[in-house]
């Protein structure tokens, strides 16, 4: 009786919509897991014995080394920036996040363009100094090359999270260690690294999930991994079933990472919520120490942002006049259209679930938020496979209706833009959701409760009160998901309707067709938009007192 009453109290439009949204995210993923256990095809047999070991080997090597190097670079930079003052530190604080504005696939072909035989480095050496280099040392299209790219362009995840942790949490421990006479190196390895473990694990698991999600880098470099194999079995062999099995295997790896993350993070909690947060007071470095720290941060910034951007601008200057034509404008229009539509849907869905979750603290709302976060961990190629199987099934169910309204009973939904946008929503809902949830957290529940006691229903309260109070968070969520969709590659490549190109797919296509100069303009547009968003969120927003 009690349960029944609780349920009827919960049962309102917000809950029903939230459940609907959560199911939308779950369906494609579940359909993959279920189909993993269906009949094996001969292709799968072949893949399993001849290709899968190689995929697992490559993926593991890339993950282990990228993980190691991003931890080293990200944590050391976070520590230097938090604990010391050195030249241009204020710039580096947020400048070191900027590499995130460059999607790894763009970095991959930019670096290859710089380093190959006709690139600026080798031609410079040949023409100016008459030096012929051994090509082996300048070939970046290798497994180590991909680790280099992933490390440089993904380390900011570790840097960002660790820096936030060190800035707020660590002062007492580190100052104690100093007073006990530890030197800087000891402090870094024996105090900073262990106490920031939670933050580091959080950052590096984001890096690893990005690595698993990547299609552009490994495809361009010709390294077989899960993403490329999923594409190949599907488009090359036309075997959706085998693609599903590969996707499911990849999903198990993702779950494994998430479980390990939870385990590594959850056992000990190194945070002091009870104590008043006191920021770490930085020590001013002078002389060679100051300049060597500056040089370290400067080199990373140059390699991971400045140099590739200068190269792309150089190529853009060579080509922009013949690039800008109606076809290119349509690319911009397409990109803007899918990103705006996707971000709008994400924000609406995120607001619905976040509002439901904060008003009803129960297992259902907890499960809903977990599911949404999960969507962000699933690699693009897997979501693509999942969503296309679901959409084909929906189309088949609707054949009768298509005929009844005078349409050909063909695949309508599963060849439409709607499918692509739904996929974006599934993959990036977490991005918008996190922004909006933190907005709700900041304003708290009291205004909504005040409104309820003044006679407004939950929905009226939402429109009259809540929306006004979380405007900023809604805007943040919108911009962040907009940028993610603009940068996105694998989902767009797989699910776009025939002849539909966006800035990212076209840039990748140009680069793959050895038209590297033509790839620069769309790449620059993507980088500039993402860069503005990063500047805005990490420079402007962080400075605000609240």
């Amino acid at each position: 009786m009690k349960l029944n009453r609780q349920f009827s109290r919960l049962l309102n439009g917000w809950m029903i919509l939230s459940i609907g949204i959560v199911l939308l995210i779950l369906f494609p993923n579940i359909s993959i897991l279920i189909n993993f256990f269906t009949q094996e095809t001969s292709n799968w047999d072949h893949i399993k014995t001849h290709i899968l070991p190689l995929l697992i080997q490559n993926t593991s090597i890339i993950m282990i080394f990228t993980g190691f190097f991003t931890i080293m670079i990200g944590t050391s930079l976070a520590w230097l920036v938090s604990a010391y003052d050195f030249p241009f530190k204020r710039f580096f604080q947020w400048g070191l996040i900027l590499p995130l504005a460059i999607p790894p696939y763009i970095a991959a072909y930019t670096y290859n363009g710089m380093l190959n035989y006709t690139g600026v480095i080798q031609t410079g050496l040949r023409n100016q100094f008459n030096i012929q280099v051994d090509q082996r040392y300048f070939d970046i299209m290798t497994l180590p090359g991909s680790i280099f790219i992933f490390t440089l362009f993904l380390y900011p995840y570790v840097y960002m999270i660790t820096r936030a942790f060190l800035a707020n949490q660590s002062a007492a421990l580190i100052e104690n260690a100093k007073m006990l006479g530890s030197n800087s190196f000891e402090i870094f390895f024996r105090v900073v690294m262990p106490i920031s473990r939670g933050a580091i694990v959080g950052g590096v698991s984001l890096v690893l999930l990005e690595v698993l999600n990547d299609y552009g880098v490994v495809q361009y470099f010709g390294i077989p991994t899960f993403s490329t194999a999923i594409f190949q079995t599907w488009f090359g062999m036309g075997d959706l079933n085998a693609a599903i099995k590969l996707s499911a295997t990849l999903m198990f790896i993702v779950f494994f990472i998430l479980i390990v993350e939870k385990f590594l993070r959850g056992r000990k909690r190194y945070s002091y919520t009870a104590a008043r947060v006191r920021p770490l007071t930085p020590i001013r470095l002078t002389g060679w120490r100051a300049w060597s720290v500056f040089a370290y941060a400067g080199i990373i910034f140059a390699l991971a942002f400045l140099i590739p951007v200068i190269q792309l601008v150089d190529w853009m200057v060579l080509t922009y006049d013949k690039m800008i034509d109606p076809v290119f404008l349509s690319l911009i229009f397409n990109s803007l259209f899918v990103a705006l539509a996707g971000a709008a849907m994400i924000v609406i869905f995120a607001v619905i679930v976040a509002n439901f979750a904060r008003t009803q603290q129960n297992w259902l709302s907890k499960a809903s938020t977990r599911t949404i976060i999960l969507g962000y961990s699933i690699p693009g190629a897997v979501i693509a496979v999942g969503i296309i199987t679901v959409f084909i099934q929906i189309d088949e169910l609707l054949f009768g209706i298509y005929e009844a309204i005078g349409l050909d009973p063909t695949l309508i939904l599963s060849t439409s833009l709607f499918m692509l946008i739904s996929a974006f929503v599934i993959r990036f809902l977490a991005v918008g959701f996190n922004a909006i949830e933190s907005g709700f957290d900041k304003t708290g529940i009291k205004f909504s409760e005040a409104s309820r006691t003044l006679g407004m229903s939950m929905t009226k309260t939402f429109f009259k009160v809540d929306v006004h109070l979380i405007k900023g968070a809604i805007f943040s969520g919108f911009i962040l998901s907009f940028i993610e969709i603009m940068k996105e590659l694998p989902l767009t490549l797989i699910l776009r309707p025939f002849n539909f190109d966006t800035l990212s797919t076209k840039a990748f296509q140009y680069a793959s067709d050895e038209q590297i100069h033509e790839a620069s303009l769309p790449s620059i547009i993507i980088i500039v938009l993402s860069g503005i968003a990063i500047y805005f969120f990490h420079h402007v927003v962080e400075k605000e007192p609240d």
Partner: protein
Amino acid sequence: MYIQIKELSFSYGRSQKPIINNFNLEIAKGDIVSILGESGSGKSTILRLICGLETPVCGSISINKQMMSDGRHCILPEKRSIGMMFQDYALFPHMSVADNVQFGLKHKSRKDKRKRVDQVLELVNMSDFRNRYPHELSGGQQQRIALARSLAPEPSLLLMDEPFSNLDADLQIKIRNELRDIIKATGTTSIFVTHDREDARAIADRIITMREGSAYEWDSLCTIDDLTEPALVD
């Protein structure tokens, strides 16, 4: 009795220790009752249960013979017409004073709404501030607006959660006498929660103490410090 609360119990989560345990209370129409208790004694939770922001595990609440909550149904907070004044006032920061006060007025013409807003602003002596925003008011002024906002829809019951906790000590003494006069002038039945004995004595017709989730009653005419052994209600 106008308000009847019977055998009310509440806990967060099933296995948790009950915060409210077999709580009983009856209030006559027009009375001001104070619930006095230490922090964590569950006194704020009583208010949240009465206005419907929490659902009780068992027990019943009725106001003016209308059942608000019992074993079978539980009326939503917006349908109860109970006014609540929150501890930190919760004035909507994006609305002016007049909009805040008007917020709870429904089913009225624009003219009537304006009239009612003028009326309650006058009651709390804040007529000159109708176009200000909450952040432009002092703590005491915000408190009066919060009172005006909860009184505007003519609630059948007014709840106040630690109404003086955000005020300076001198202001507190001045305002609590004013508050009693205003509430008595409207004849609104009220329950207010406090940890301060002096507040309770200054305002209330009756004082209830909360201890481990149950209610004990004192006669407010006695000196509270004399009463070490409270008598159990019922």
